[in-house]
């Protein structure tokens, strides 16, 4: 795994966790048909927290964060995002989605729009920002992810790492208060993982509330303030990264860690 990816010291001065609750999930259950994917999930995320969710494939970790912005519907329990209770009302869902940014494994950029248009689409149509202002914001964030010179290209002309950084910038343009990352580096060549992780670290340094599903344990060690381990749709163990990696409690966690860190 790319613990090598961290080339610099992480600046922790702004990484403060406040008492304010960003996401609260209580007794949440979800089924795909008859298959019980998420079982009794309880999770409270404070504003400013950086949470890494790890676990074997099929353990429900992606499904969990996709429930937070209602890309998946949960059948039981309660999810409160930024003070708004997630219900099946469409207006309510669109409101939450515009406050919660999401970055996908396969980027999901819009291939028929330029990089700049990808970044301004939602601000213009959802936030009703004037076009000029939206473009300024977009250029600001494209500079932040270090690809302002690609603004007029199409996603198909960029490398995977660049596309993922655009995807992060696109989410940031909506000025979200929470960012969800669904395996953001899993579809990337090893050479490109670092540039995306650097962008994510930068985001964490600015105090963004982040929930990341990732296998990048180096990132978890350095940036996360909490690591959650999931298996078979349940939260099996959660702890501070130092404790989690050095002193795992459950057998399942030990096995998982030995498999992904063992070579």
């Amino acid at each position, binding site marked *: 795994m790319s613990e090598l990816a961290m080339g610099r010291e992480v600046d922790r001065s702004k990484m403060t966790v406040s008492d304010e609750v960003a996401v609260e999930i209580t007794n949440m259950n979800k089924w795909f048909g008859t298959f019980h994917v998420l079982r009794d999930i309880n999770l409270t995320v404070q504003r400013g927290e950086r949470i890494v969710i790890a676990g074997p494939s099929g353990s429900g970790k992606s499904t969990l964060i996709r429930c937070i912005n209602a890309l998946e519907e949960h059948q039981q329990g309660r999810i409160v995002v930024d003070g708004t209770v997630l219900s099946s009302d469409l207006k309510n869902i*669109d409101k939450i*989605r515009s406050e919660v940014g999401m970055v996908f494994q396969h980027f999901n950029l*819009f291939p*028929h729009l330029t990089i700049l248009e990808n970044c301004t689409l*939602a601000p213009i149509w*959802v936030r009703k920002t004037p076009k000029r202002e939206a473009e300024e914001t977009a250029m600001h964030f494209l500079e932040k992810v270090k690809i302002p010179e690609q603004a007029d290209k*199409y*996603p*198909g002309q960029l490398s995977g790492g660049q596309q993922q950084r655009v995807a992060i910038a*696109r989410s940031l343009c909506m000025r979200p208060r929470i960012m969800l990352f669904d395996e953001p580096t899993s579809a990337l060549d090893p050479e490109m993982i670092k540039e995306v992780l650097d962008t994510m670290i930068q985001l964490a340094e600015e105090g963004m509330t982040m929930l990341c599903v990732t296998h990048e344990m180096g990132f978890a060690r350095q940036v996360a303030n909490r690591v959650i381990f999931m298996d078979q749709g349940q939260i099996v163990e959660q702890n501070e990264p130092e404790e989690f990696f050095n002193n795992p409690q459950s057998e399942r966690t030990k096995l998982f860690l030995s498999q992904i860190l063992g070579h």
Partner: protein
Amino acid sequence: MSEVSYVRTEMLPEREPPATTIGVIGWMRENLFSGWFNTALTIVSLTFVVMLLNAILPWIFSPTWYATSLGECRDILRGMGREGHYPGACWGVIRDRWVQLLFGFYPSELYWRPIMAFLLLGVALAPVLFSDRVPRKLLWFSAVYPFLFPWLLWGGPIWGPLMVIAGFVIGWFVYRAADKRAGGLAGIIAGVLAAVIWWLLVSGYVIDGVSAVLPIGIEAVQSRNFGGFMLSVTIGVVAIACSLPIGVVLALGRQSDLLIVKALCVGFIEFIRGVPLITLLFVASTLLNIFMPPGTNFDIILRVIIMATLFASAYMAEVIRGGLAALPQGQYEGADSLGLDYWQAQRLVIMPQALKISIPGIVSTFIGLFKDTTLVSIIGLLDPLGLSNSIRADAAWNGIVWEIYGFIALLFFAFCFAMSRYSMYLERKLNTGHH
């Protein structure tokens, strides 16, 4: 130093490819004479092409342009010593009847109207087809054109098209008013209802009233005088323009989570696709009158246009559904995660891509629809094929077949080929790289 150790000290320069692989020689080697089998195939097909041209070209180049009957054509050809089963084409019939093949029995002093209508059609289409080269302001003309087009062709008082526009305006205002009080869907229903009531019940009296006071208009032309290629293009253009939006709505409806909407769309698509177009045209020409209140005169061309549109939109819906199915789920999720609502996501993210993927299928449907307009000859409308029968019934041209059909085929080919080339241009223009 070990055996496997190797370090490159200088990079190799770029070199030209071998001369036999580029240019004309390279192309011929690659495409015509690569191996003995392909060489043989090339020679055989070249021979075939030469023989074919040898047979057809003399027939086409036949100096019969000024003949006034088939008999005269034969005399001219016999005078040149050309005899046999098909000694040469008799082009006199085209010179004599091409105007009729284009305009049918449209009054000849009013030909400027269809000509103007089709020239303006080009102007109205330009900003839609070539959005990057034509000023966007022209779109205003494109919006007005659908009302101008039927008025130019059918004529009558100017108030007719104006009252149709008024219906849209009324519908819009009712929608705005109802939307504020009752919300989205109720607003749409109220707006549509208001417009329909206006068109069906009120506008007729208003037109009569205003026309009595201010009789501004152009001479009316009856539908039975329509004919020729003009009729095909009229039916084709209107049906093409209407079938695309209806097809999009049907395709979305078919994917909808709303059970009744979905059932209606699936039922409509499957029914229309399961019935031959000719049946629908017969329904339009005969059966529909049975269901109408006695005395209503529902224009036959309008009925045919409606049937052709419904027929094409069912196919269009399936073509577009194919495009929708080809989009990765991630595109929907990407749009959703940014907070776009359903219609915004469809309009800004999903449809532009789905339509782009479906361009070849959409254009095939357009071309098919345009050619299907010739079926109207069976229900007695005088499209070019219908006219060809009456031309051959003329004693002077009795016995002529290939020349008329060839001419008609050429007209259709020109239109269909243009559509096909445009679609290829559009595909190239919209190509934004892989993924």
